[in-house]
């Protein structure tokens, strides 16, 4: 299309007939341009509408169950005015420990890919499986940890849930760490090496520092992702009706509680499920926005 149209459009006005043609052509080109622009605007509006609709639904249905009791009382049976305290605390503990286990591993793998492996066969395989892990259905990861930890050690435990979340954290941190390390200019590396510093010091003292914000963002995004995960916790940390912070025992979590309450017959449980959904979404969105602010300041 381009060559002919462009030459026609850009042609110096010749005889009157050509001018009319080119004017008509110009009009149709501009009309098409306007239509496409309008469609793009509409697409963006639709995308934003989805987000607004999700948030509005959560606020509208979540407010009914939201009260101070939600934060001060643990889960109770229907009709007993329960809250979500144990689930909130359980989610915080498991998410943080999961991230604490997964982050160092992910960081080292990302470092390996960016600094040591580059395009070696092993490096490419590691990169590939890490990306596969990124889109693996989380229920299968829960199942795997069940077979590896829960079954042999005779019992559900919060630590099993943490491990399942850690497996999900790893590939996210790997991806951002590698991307961020690769962005560091070669000149900076050469300068450090030129000063006689060993490579590991260059990586830990210079590269990590330079890529700190980017890596932090990755970790925060990973935390946001696992904070909302239901499936991997169902068969690992199981859930707990009572207040428990013992890592060797089953532990409650918000997503699992939401999952179980949302389908119950009792209105107070359903309200709590929506309140929990509102809390978790706001929490996750807040982490995301913080992550973006961190990244923005850094780059």
């Amino acid at each position: 299309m381009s060559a002919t149209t462009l030459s026609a459009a850009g042609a110096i006005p010749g005889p009157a007939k050509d001018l009319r043609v080119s004017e008509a052509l110009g009009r149709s080109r501009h009309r098409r341009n306007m239509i496409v622009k309008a469609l793009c605007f509409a697409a963006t509006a639709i995308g934003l509408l989805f987000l607004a609709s999700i948030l509005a639904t959560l606020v509208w249905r979540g407010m009914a169950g939201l009260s101070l009791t939600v934060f001060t009382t643990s889960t109770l049976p229907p009709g007993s005015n329960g809250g979500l305290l144990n689930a909130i605390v359980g989610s915080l503990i498991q998410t943080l420990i999961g991230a604490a286990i997964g982050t160092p591993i992910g960081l080292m793998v990302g470092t390996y890919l960016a600094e040591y492996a580059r395009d070696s066969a092993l490096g490419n395989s590691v990169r590939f499986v890490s990306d596969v892990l990124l889109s693996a259905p989380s229920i299968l990861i829960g199942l795997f940890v069940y077979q590896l930890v829960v079954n042999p050690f005779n019992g559900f435990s919060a630590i099993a849930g943490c491990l399942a979340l850690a497996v999900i954290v790893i590939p996210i941190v790997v991806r951002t760490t590698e991307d961020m390390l690769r962005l560091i200019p070669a000149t900076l590396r050469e300068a450090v090496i030129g000063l006689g510093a060993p490579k590991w010091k260059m990586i830990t003292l210079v590269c990590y520092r330079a890529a700190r914000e980017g890596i932090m963002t990755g970790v925060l995004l990973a935390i946001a992702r696992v904070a909302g995960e239901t499936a991997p916790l169902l068969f690992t940390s199981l859930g707990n009706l009572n207040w428990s912070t013992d890592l060797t025992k089953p532990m409650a979590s918000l997503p699992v509680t939401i999952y179980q309450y949302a389908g119950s017959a009792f209105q107070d449980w359903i309200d709590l499920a929506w309140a929990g959904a509102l809390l978790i979404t706001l929490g996750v969105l807040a982490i995301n926005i913080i992550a973006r602010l961190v990244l923005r300041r850094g780059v």
Partner: protein
Amino acid sequence: MNFATTALAVTLAGLTWSAQAQQITGAGATFPAPIYAKWGEAAKAATGLELNYQAIGSGGGQTQIVNRTVDFGASDAPMAVDRMEKANLHQFPSVMGAVVVIVNIPGVTTNQLKLDGTMVADIYHGKITKWNDPRIQEMNKGITLPNRAIAPVYRADGSGTTYVFASYLSAVDPTWKAKVGAATSVKWPTGQGARGNDGVAATVQNTPGGFGYVEFAYAKQNNLATAAIRNKAGSFVVPSMETFSAAASNADWANAKHFAVDLIDQAGEKSWPIVSATFILLPKDPKDPARSANVMKFIDWAYNSGDALATGLDYVPLPAAVKTAVRGSWTAEIKGPDGKPVR
């Protein structure tokens, strides 16, 4: 990695402040989860036992107790006898519940519509497709039924509710028994699946002409329109605590092996035909007898003091004679490593 995990677990466990009551962990069926939670709350004050029950599904509950990852398993369907014996488990009922048929026909109110078992089966077979089908209209002379397609809805997730409902259809309809059968999920000849009781209820409510089945508590709490069903004695019964209890009192508990009593389609004028018990599974050879003893202590408390709580949440308490028989079975069946009864 195992070492690191264990080390981390030990360190962190040491840091936590868990001075707690004795905890019982159970997992399994979703159907009794609300009443177990209710009993757990009340029993904590009375017995000092803290119950943690998680609804992961009956199949999950069976697997967990076979693997001994929990103190007790819970299942809506009685466990297969060979698997139960292989895993050395003892099974007994805790409470009962009922499944009801819900409808969404414009102009028809709750318990107005009358159906019999084969008609329900034929709707799910796809043989009856319209609400004004002559067979339905014949049974419901007083009401005008619309010329509207029936939209059958079923539980798509594996569930005890489906097991009970499909058992009922198998009991009343030989074709169903031969072609479909009963299990926690079956191959439905027609209809739309939905996840959970809430999914079925919402789909039926969203669809004029909708037809489905849910646990009684779910229908009652959400004011869903139910249908009256003709029972074995030939009378039309509506779902209520009274008709559920009637079915339970007519059942043959004494001759049921492993307490796996069949409460479906019981005789008796007032019996609601779709009733079932939900079960608890305990190891016969507990490695840690104290934990099994705690479970029995908890259930014993629930048998003695939990009936009112059960009816409050629309569950049906067990007949007194059955409770006595279960208590006796504990002494006979569950023995510690020293060979002495745990309770």
